[in-house]
């Protein structure tokens, strides 16, 4: 097939032939997707029993940041949370007791991303410094201890908006305002693979839940959601139905679908195998952007955090709103489910984090 030999370009390829082929391919793509669009999710879901959630409320409030909380992540021990803030601080919380266990000062303000390593023994964070800095935890515990053994791993040419450990303590995946995603070796700090495809800032990343872990998804200010093959470095799928910046992307726990939250005030569900959008979560009363999305353990509930200071829970199948989660006093910036699914952490520009259970 032509696709296999694409890399070795023939001398006969002219700009005209390439443009013509691109247009034909676009049309073919749309036709193929439409052909397989035999039912809608909402139609299937109507036959399912409606669900209700009643007991979800704020159980803890984590106070201590001096400015907007921009990101958070749970430790694999299901008890600790790391958060990063505009104030330039990284804080490790004991979510059970709400106490601060560790505070690390970062080299710049606007620490937009932070992550726990799968082992729980390392933290990564960065933002306006265009870098990811990794902090080993444990050993001799104490304030600022990690800061003395920190290491710079990744450097972008613009701000670092999101980062994650791809199922290993040895590598780091980052997304940046320079429009690229990149895979780094933590030990050597070397760039292993660069992922180029977004035409504007990358805002969010998520790794496919499969053990293989060689697929990830990204969302960006070009309104696009891209699915990547980590080994080849190529984008294998693109979803471009959002009308504005995509702020957040999250794999459905089943692994074959991705939820996204956008400044167009909708959340959407894209199925990778059907290669199309299969659900849209929106309401007339929701007019602010969706800044963060997160799934419950079963993938029945889709949580979304908005610019209107609220979060909410959607029935992912029936695309109806089940619960409004008010309480924050500024826009929501990040949502994270505890690893065992018992609680949802929300981070906000009101400088607090809240734990819902």
């Amino acid at each position, binding site marked *: 097939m032509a696709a296999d030999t*694409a890399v070795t370009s023939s001398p006969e390829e002219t700009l005209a032939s390439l443009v013509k082929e691109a247009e034909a391919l676009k049309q073919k793509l749309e036709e193929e997707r439409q052909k397989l669009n035999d039912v809608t999710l909402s139609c299937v879901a109507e036959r399912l029993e409606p669900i209700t959630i009643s007991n979800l409320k704020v159980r803890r409030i984590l106070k201590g940041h001096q400015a907007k909380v921009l990101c958070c992540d749970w430790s694999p021990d299901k008890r600790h949370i790391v958060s990063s803030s505009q104030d330039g601080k990284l804080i490790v919380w004991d979510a059970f007791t709400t106490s601060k266990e560790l505070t690390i000062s970062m080299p710049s303000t606007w620490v937009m991303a932070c992550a726990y390593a799968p082992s729980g023994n390392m933290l990564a964070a960065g933002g306006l410094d265009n870098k990811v800095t990794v902090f080993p935890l444990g050993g001799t515990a104490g304030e600022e201890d990690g800061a003395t053994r920190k290491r710079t791993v990744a450097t972008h040419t613009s701000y670092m908006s999101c980062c994650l450990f791809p199922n290993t303590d040895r590598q780091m995946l980052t997304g940046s305002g320079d429009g690229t995603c990149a895979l780094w070796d933590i030990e050597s700090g070397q760039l292993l693979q660069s992922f180029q495809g977004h035409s504007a800032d990358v805002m969010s990343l998520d790794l496919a839940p499969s053990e293989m872990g060689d697929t990830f998804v990204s969302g960006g200010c070009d309104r696009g959601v891209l699915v990547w093959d980590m080994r080849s470095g190529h984008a*294998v799928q693109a979803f471009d139905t959002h009308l504005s910046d995509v702020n957040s992307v999250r794999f459905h726990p089943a692994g074959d679908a991705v939820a996204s939250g956008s400044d167009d005030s909708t959340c959407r569900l894209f199925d990778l*195998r059907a290669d199309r959008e299969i659900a849209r979560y929106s309401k007339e009363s929701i007019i602010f952007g969706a800044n963060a999305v997160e799934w419950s353990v079963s993938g029945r509930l889709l949580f979304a955090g908005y610019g209107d200071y609220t979060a909410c829970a959607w029935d992912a199948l029936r695309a109806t709103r089940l619960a409004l989660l008010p309480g924050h006093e500024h826009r929501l910036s990040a949502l994270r489910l505890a690893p065992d699914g018992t609680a949802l952490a929300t981070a906000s520009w009101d400088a607090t984090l809240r734990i819902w259970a």
Partner: protein
Amino acid sequence: MNTLLERHQGCSGGYALLLEYVVCLAINIGLSDTAVMDMMVSTLQQQRSVTEQLRREAAIKRIPVSVAVADIVRFISEHEQEDCLLVGFTSQKVNPFREKSSCTVL
């Protein structure tokens, strides 16, 4: 230079016309032949990567939405009972974030 331009005479579609216009403009403002050539080569490369990307996207296998949705629904029903935020906790004692009783931990 002329041969390169001639090859572009065959360009069709608005995008190609626009590119041609840009190239002509570059010549008119006095850019050297090599600079113009570089521009054309990089435009060609850019379009090639766009088309290659579409080839990859077009080559993937797809399944009907009904099958994809059925699989999602099955996954959810298999895991619904483990979903504490959906079905609640068997007892509030199991909830690690339950409100503590009146005595506080020192």
